């Protein structure tokens, strides 16, 4: 008899909450060596993980099953798309082991969006509600900001139905969709979401932003100040809302800064970035809350579940902000550069609206964590 679906499959949100809460889980990764090494599934606590590729189970089931150690808790079997993990989980269950296949595999992990409410400043009487939408598998952050019955969305991923439904669930309608820059690591959902909801879409053009010619949201409390912060890309901006909340895109992260090398001109863009960080963002009150578009790993997630930082704190904690002078900044960054994100040129073309891609293609392009930050060379 077939077991009910719930016993044989484990969904990504459940898997992540099990790992986050430190349950005694064994994660069996059956992808190939390369995929296993380059893109791990990570929760907020370490999880016991072993790696045995699925084709070893096909070739030598008994030897492979013997490689899965005795474990007091459930076994979650993980592969790229959820096919091979089903096969391996079934083999394990036949031997009496409590194994479940992670539904949709790493693709589902990379697509999953988890909304977390951002606590507002105590003195804030704006009445805003800020949701940080965490795409945990990729380390991408987008935002829903609600004021009464109206909301704006910043840097949405391409799962546009999620944002539409989430905002609807809050009892609001979308009155503006904004990108902080032309993203290079993932396909933006902003123009599609704007089209679908009829809301205006604002994306900065290269060069200084032109607020008068734009489609910034009309609702005063949701209408951001647009700060030109070129560097990660020439058109990058930060949005300041209610004078307190700074949506920094890929300019400043809670643990680092955006990489300025994707245009192939590290020196020029790097100098721009240095000036944006030190001149433009320095003039902002230091209690401002920074809400970035990315983070590098689960260690950046704070106890309340958000990934944020006060400008005051980041000025002291972000290593790249401690580098004094443009020359030293450029030197240090040049020593830390890593390969560009996979398919970034294709992704940029789609985000600029000059190319189209199928869902399957985009899915393939977006595999893996974001690589938008300046990397740190291990000491």
């Amino acid at each position: 008899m077939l077991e009910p679906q719930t016993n044989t499959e484990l969904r990504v949100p459940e898997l992540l909450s099990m790992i986050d809460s430190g349950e005694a889980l064994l994660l069996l990764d059956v992808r190939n060596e390369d995929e296993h090494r380059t893109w791990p599934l990570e929760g907020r606590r370490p999880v016991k993980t072993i790696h045995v590729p699925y084709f070893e189970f096909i070739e030598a089931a008994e030897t492979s099953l013997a490689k899965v150690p005795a474990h007091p808790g459930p076994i979650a079997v993980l592969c790229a798309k959820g096919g091979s993990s089903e096969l391996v989980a079934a083999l394990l269950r036949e031997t009496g082991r409590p194994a479940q296949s992670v539904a949709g595999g790493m693709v589902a992990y990379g697509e999953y969006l988890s909304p977390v409410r951002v606590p507002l400043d105590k003195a804030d009487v704006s009445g805003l509600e800020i949701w940080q939408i965490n795409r945990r598998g990729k380390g991408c952050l987008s935002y829903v900001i609600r004021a009464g019955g109206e909301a704006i969305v910043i840097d949405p991923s391409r799962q546009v139905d999620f944002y539409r439904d989430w905002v609807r669930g809050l009892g609001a309608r979308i009155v503006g969709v904004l990108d902080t820059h032309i993203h290079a690591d993932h396909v933006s959902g902003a123009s599609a979401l704007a089209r679908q909801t009829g809301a205006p879409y604002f994306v900065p053009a290269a060069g200084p932003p032109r607020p008068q010619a734009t489609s910034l949201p009309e609702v005063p409390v949701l209408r951001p100040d647009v700060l030109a912060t070129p560097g990660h890309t020439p058109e990058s901006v930060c949005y300041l809302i209610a004078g307190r909340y700074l949506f920094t895109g890929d300019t400043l992260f809670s643990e680092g800064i955006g990489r300025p090398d994707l245009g192939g001109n590290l020196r020029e863009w790097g100098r721009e970035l240095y000036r944006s960080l030190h001149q433009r963002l320095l003039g902002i009150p230091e209690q401002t809350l920074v809400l970035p578009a990315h983070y590098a790993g689960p260690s950046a997630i704070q106890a309340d579940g958000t990934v944020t930082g006060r400008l005051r704190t980041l000025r002291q904690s972000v290593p790249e902000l401690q580098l004094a002078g443009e020359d030293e900044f450029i030197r240090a960054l040049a020593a830390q550069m890593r390969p560009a994100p996979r398919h970034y040129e294709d992704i940029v073309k789609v985000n600029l609206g000059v190319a189209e891609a199928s869902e399957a293609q985009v899915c393939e392009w977006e595999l893996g964590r974001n690589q938008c930050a300046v990397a740190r060379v291990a000491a």
Partner: protein
Amino acid sequence: MKKLDVRGAKCPIPIIKAKKEIDLMAPGELLEVLSTDPGSVPDFQGWVKVNKKAALNSQRTEKDETGREIYVHLLERLS
């Protein structure tokens, strides 16, 4: 040369079907596998390390008539 068309199938299907074919082939026979899954490239490389009957002679990519990227794996049955 035999052909195995597993376009559109996701893992583990390409490896399972290739294994079945290889088991039925005579030593020295060749099998060309057509797949649309980019993951099949490292998977076939890993699989022939644990499968004693098959060698991976070459891998290449081409476009099919619909413009899809196709990953072509050329396998040889060993003795």
